[in-house]
């Protein structure tokens, strides 16, 4: 068995028994933490598609996260009362609301992407950041949906009668989505689109000289990435029963970037490891001191300036070391 397959199996097993471990340790909060880790992992994995595979640094992915979350929130708010804009009925059905959220996030990604991808480099970073801010201010300004206080979602979505308020249930639902999503990313990576995207990242001029429409290719990747991040936002809205402007703030985009890089840019499991590392740091550093962002900043600085390849690089090196020593 290759070291990567061993890793996958280990992670899957760990994922499946996690709530039991948490209960055994008497730390039920760890279940909620794990749910959030998985949700952010989906978001980070989506960002990894454009950043790691595609070479585009987007500082605006919070936009898709927030759109996903607010879609759930707004649909829930109109469920059982007046329809949205007098036309669109609200819904509490998971199987309708979540796909709608993803669709909306994709649409927003199409708009933002089609405009931003005309630029590159530093401009791209700043334009994506600015677009996310537009949505942030929009969310803050509409009191009907909570304004700066955020939108409370009274009940989580209906899914086959499951009680999504129950932490373990929500966790397993999220786990299923996470596994499915990572499987999709894995297939994308080894598909033709993945190979072409990788080519565009390495040498766009060469790809243009071969006749590839690099703008369109980047846009596909960007929209897929937006859909995935929207999914994460929709799941988060369900998990927290809350959609807030924070989901759209540029620092959230920054958090996603940190997760991707910490975990290992362009790798398959980097986003998962990065998300876990980030949330663990945030939770435990946060419990230790209210100034937790200071050590976080220092760690990040050291990782960026000092290393290349993040945690994934480190882990694969360690795993490789072990595998070589197997009998």
């Amino acid at each position: 068995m290759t070291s990567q397959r061993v890793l996958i199996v280990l992670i899957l097993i760990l994922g499946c028994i996690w709530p039991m471990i948490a209960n055994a340790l008497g730390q039920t909060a760890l279940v909620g933490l794990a749910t959030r880790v998985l949700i952010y992992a989906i978001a980070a994995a989506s960002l990894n598609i454009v950043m790691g595979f595609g070479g585009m640094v987007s500082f605006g992915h919070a936009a898709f996260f927030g759109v996903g979350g607010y879609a759930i929130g707004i649909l829930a708010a109109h469920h059982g009362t007046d329809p949205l804009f007098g036309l669109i009925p609200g819904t509490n059905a998971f199987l309708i609301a979540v796909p709608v959220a993803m669709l909306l996030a994709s649409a927003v990604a199409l708009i933002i992407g089609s405009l931003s991808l005309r630029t590159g480099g530093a401009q791209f970073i700043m334009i994506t950041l600015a677009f996310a801010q537009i949505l942030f201010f929009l969310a803050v300004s509409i009191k009907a949906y909570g304004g700066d206080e955020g939108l409370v979602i009274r009940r989580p979505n209906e899914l086959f009668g499951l009680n999504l308020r129950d932490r373990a249930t929500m966790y397993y639902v999220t786990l299923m989505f996470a596994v499915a999503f990572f499987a999709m990313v894995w297939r994308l990576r080894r598909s033709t689109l993945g190979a072409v995207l990788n080519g565009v990242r390495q040498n766009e001029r060469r790809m243009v000289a071969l006749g590839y429409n690099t703008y369109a290719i980047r846009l596909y990747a960007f929209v897929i990435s937006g859909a995935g991040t929207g999914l994460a936002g929709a799941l988060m809205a369900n998990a927290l029963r809350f959609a807030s402007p924070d989901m759209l703030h540029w620092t959230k985009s920054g958090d996603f970037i940190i997760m991707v890089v910490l975990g290992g840019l362009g790798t398959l499991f980097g986003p998962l490891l990065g998300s876990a590392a980030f949330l663990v740091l945030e939770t435990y550093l946060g419990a230790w001191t209210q100034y937790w962002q200071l050590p976080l900043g220092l760690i990040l600085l050291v990782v960026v300036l000092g290393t290349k390849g993040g945690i994934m690089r480190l882990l694969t090196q360690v795993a490789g070391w072990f595998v070589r020593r197997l009998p």
Partner: protein
Amino acid sequence: MLLILEQLLNGLQYGVTLFLLAAGLTLIFGIMGVINLAHGSLYMIGAFVGVYFGAMTESFVLGMIAAILGGAAAGLALEALVVRRLYARDHLDQVLATFAVILIANQVIVLLFGRQPLFAPIPEALSRSIDLGAGLQYPAYRLFVIAAGLGVAALLYVLINRTRVGMLVRAGSTNRDMVRALGVNIRALYTAVFVLGAVLAAFAGFVSGPIYSVEAGMGERIILATFVVVVVGGLGSIRGAFIAAMVLGMIDTLMRGVLPELMRLVLPPSEADALSAGLASMGIYLVMALFLLVRPQGLFASGN
């Protein structure tokens, strides 16, 4: 009418503040190729250092000097410890590293000064309103900020266009390698440019203290608007930054001044205020998006 005039002057004042920040940022990007997210932190450091020393010595002027020196020191330290390692790196690393600096700087400020905003007093001499004619009374302090900002802009113009150092800066922003080939000490030039940007930001932070609040995170609020200015003006162009800063500063201020009145005509007050605040905040980003549709490289694109 009076309201419009007042808003225009406010817009001028905001624009001048934006320019002070944008000039440094665009130079740092144009010449060193570095995206410095932490530029807002230098703004914040200038405000805190200046206001603190100003309060201690009870002198606005000494406070200003302290702000400038503090900004220079912070700039030097930041350049030597972090930014220097970013010249050869890609934009992602630069963004992450400077983002990390923001986190660190904010927390250090909170550690030193707490979370409450610092009170930044307006000096006696400038605390009246001046009659500008036609019945318009305008705060002297804001006029001071406008004057100071335009003065610095003029100094910058002279520096960039009339001195040898300025020539190197201009050359460096269009062709880094050529400057190196001329045998100029690139290290020293880079450090000088960064410190100049830091000083401009710190100065802007200090003079803005009495107008906006002095607290941790103040840099992030204005840095986003600064990025918009830099992108619209063209990365690397000071001229572009000036024009963009003035125009965007005006647009932003006018929107904030006029929109609430308009919104209140159709919506209940609290909703109108929230919506108009949101729309006004969105304003410059929308302008940027539309502008970039037409001209992605900004007003004046530099060779880099």
